[in-house]
């Protein structure tokens, strides 16, 4: 959405545009406080975690539990209803994805297109470890070649002295 400063012409147009921008922002601070009864603390816990990990499809970037938009309220109602019907978390999540797509999942599923997303950090830790191993090995050889035992001893002594100072 282009919210250009109203340089010329229609200040009213700009204010309308800005207003719509604020309406989006408005969802931010008017948080949803609903009084619900749960059959058990476990169910309540599941409700909290489900509404925290499902994304409101209408908002800028909010979980349905944090949003005041009507669709988020509908989705919370559905989550609540289905929890009371004894559905599992997975069933409820699938139910939402069927209607609103993967977009509503803050926790992206592991599949072909998200392999890089889930795999890269771990792969980098491994690569980093290997690189460290290679560096330590190669440096050990370099330092052996470059410093004689006497130099090495002097260097150690200097370093040691410096650390103590």
């Amino acid at each position, binding site marked *: 959405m*282009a*919210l*250009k*400063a*109203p340089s010329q012409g229609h*200040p009213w147009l700009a*204010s309308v545009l*800005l207003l719509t*921008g*604020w309406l989006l*922002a408005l969802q*931010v*601070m*008017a*948080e949803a*406080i609903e*009084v*619900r009864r749960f059959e058990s603390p476990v169910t309540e816990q599941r409700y*909290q975690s489900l509404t925290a990990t499902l*994304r409101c499809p209408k*908002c*800028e*970037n909010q*979980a349905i539990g*944090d949003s005041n938009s009507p669709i988020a309220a509908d989705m919370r109602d559905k989550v609540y209803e289905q929890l009371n019907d004894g559905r599992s978390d997975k069933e409820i999540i699938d139910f939402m994805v069927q209607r609103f797509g*993967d*977009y*509503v*999942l*803050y*926790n*992206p599923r592991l599949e072909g297109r*998200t392999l890089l*997303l*889930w795999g*890269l*950090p771990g792969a*980098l*830790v491994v690569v*980093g*470890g290997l*690189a*460290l191993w290679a*560096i*330590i090995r190669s*440096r*050990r*050889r*370099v*330092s*052996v070649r*470059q410093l004689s035992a006497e*130099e090495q001893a002097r*260097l*150690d002594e200097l*370093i040691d*002295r*410096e*650390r*103590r100072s």
Partner: protein
Amino acid sequence: MLIKMIPEIGHYALVIALLMAVVQAVLPLAGAATRRPLWMAYARPMAAGQLAFLLIAYGCLTASYLLDDFSVVNVANNANSLLPWYYKFSAVWGNHEGSVLLWSLILGIWTFAVGCFSGRLPPDMVARVLGVMGLVSVGFLAFVLITSNPFERSLPNIPADGADLNPLLQDVGLIIHPPMLYMGYVGFSVVFAFAIAALLGGRLDSAWTRWVRPWTNIAWAFLTVGIALGSWWAYYELGWGGWWFWDPVENASLLPWLAGTALIHSLAVTEKRGTFKSWTVLLAITTFSLSLMGTFLVRSGVLTSVHAFANDPSRGLFILVLLGITVGLSLLIFALRAPRVSQPGGFNWLSRDALLLVNNILLVVMTVTVLLGTVYPLLLDALNLGKISVGPPYFNALFVPLTVLLCVFMGLGPSARWKRMSGRELLSRLWLAGAAALVIGVLAPLAYTGAWNLKASIGLVAALWLVLSLARDLWDKTSRGASRRQAVKRLTPAYWGMVLGHLGLAVTIVGVALVSNYSVERNVRMNVGDSVDVAGIRFHMTALDERRGPNFVSDAATIEVTRQGATRSFEMHPEKRLYIARGMPMTQVALRPGLFHDLYVAMGEELDDGSWALRVQIKPFVRWLWLGALLMAAGGMMAVADRRYRRQLSTRAPERESSSAASSGVVSASQVTSKEVRA
């Protein structure tokens, strides 16, 4: 007459500042390349002049706000005659145009500071550093003037009153959060400029690292405080009691912080051992690049975020081009001029060198993870692979184990020696700390709530391990001399800075672990006379009033709170405000902060029978999150006070060192060490 011209004066001053930035960029860089002292000497006066005119421009915009000059579009859109003066003052940076101006002003301040505190640096170094900073400034001032002019007028249609500042931003936290954050973001431009200057001049020695380290620490400390303030603000102002949402805008500030943390540690290795120079320089470039990227992400609209500024693709394109030129060019310079020679200086698996490298690897992986998670939806979308979201569950799943892993090595770091040490020695020093951390960390949740809690225990063990290993190290370091008091005195500010920094992280981890696992939340329906018990604390609503503020009306509840078994009680006043100018409802949370837990009451909607929906929360140890961040920042600042940085400011670096360094481009580890010892 002059008063009416204030916006034009500001605009004009901005143009002059831009021209001075051009001179500051071009002449000193050219002078350094062609060895012309006169050209190089332009750097400092231009930096000073630029700052002067930036101050004028910024002052003019602030004046327009304070004088309610609604003919200025920016003022009309973001202020209102009813707005209290201090919010008018801070409204200047509560919008896109003004905040970029603040960005530029802060860059001016940093540049000027570098000019002031670089008296003893070689002139070509100063010229290059200020030149590079001038280039960055040119980019940003051009951005302000071309796409985001805050002085634009809406003549002749002057609105009768302004649209008011977004109520979310009418808050103390938001007065100081952006300036702090920008001090951090922009502060990294100094390190960046030093890195480019070193690459251009072929001078990357231990003197260079000693020049850079204080600047890095200060910028990092500001960024730390800025991020903590943002988190604190979200906690009490957004009304959800959340403190970190992994929102793209938050991630944009975390990225340079993580890279900057890695940089601080790699600078330590490079200074002490003369190794990994290219890596350090790359980190310096990366850190600032990520700051710039954060600016792009926040202002371009490529990512959806609750915090993003009003988005405009043309601005996005401008920043992207700016980002491309700055980062692309510096990485190109890096590829062409990074030190060719691999430095000698072997070390073992068990050595401080290796541990600091592990730290760097993990911090870089964390940076990549946050970046990847932030831009991944965009990548898939651009490749037509559909729309997905990446949110808190993803980041927590990866960030928490990486942090725990980092902590394991962090505990070993301070006790380890450079180059090599025996595993037995390390074990003998630290086994007690490790065992104690394990036992206490596992048992503490049991004592706290009477139940095991794996997640809380992991956090506590990690934090305790950091603290106890630090304590052990402190003990060992002070047990060698004649008396312990003397030994404590001999410890350097740099060491204390490290202690504070690590301690700060431990404190933050305790906060995260406990608030994430032991928060209690109840949504209740309450009317006057009702009361509810949450975790042994009684909340009793005694009154409901309507109030009037300067630019809002509100419904306010009075809640009497009594702890179990206590006779004393106190009152809390949550409010639901309606800001008149924007017709915007806002939740004003009632908070009772405490070192061990916060009580948090937020008002929701009025229900049909006249009662209100209230959210009551108990947030254990939530203050520790920000307390830890403050400790970290204090640590960063403290390390700057170290003698060796002052020494380099007061005594001229030996000529021989700079000439030999300039010719070879590198100084070997033994040279560095012996010089340091001699000095």
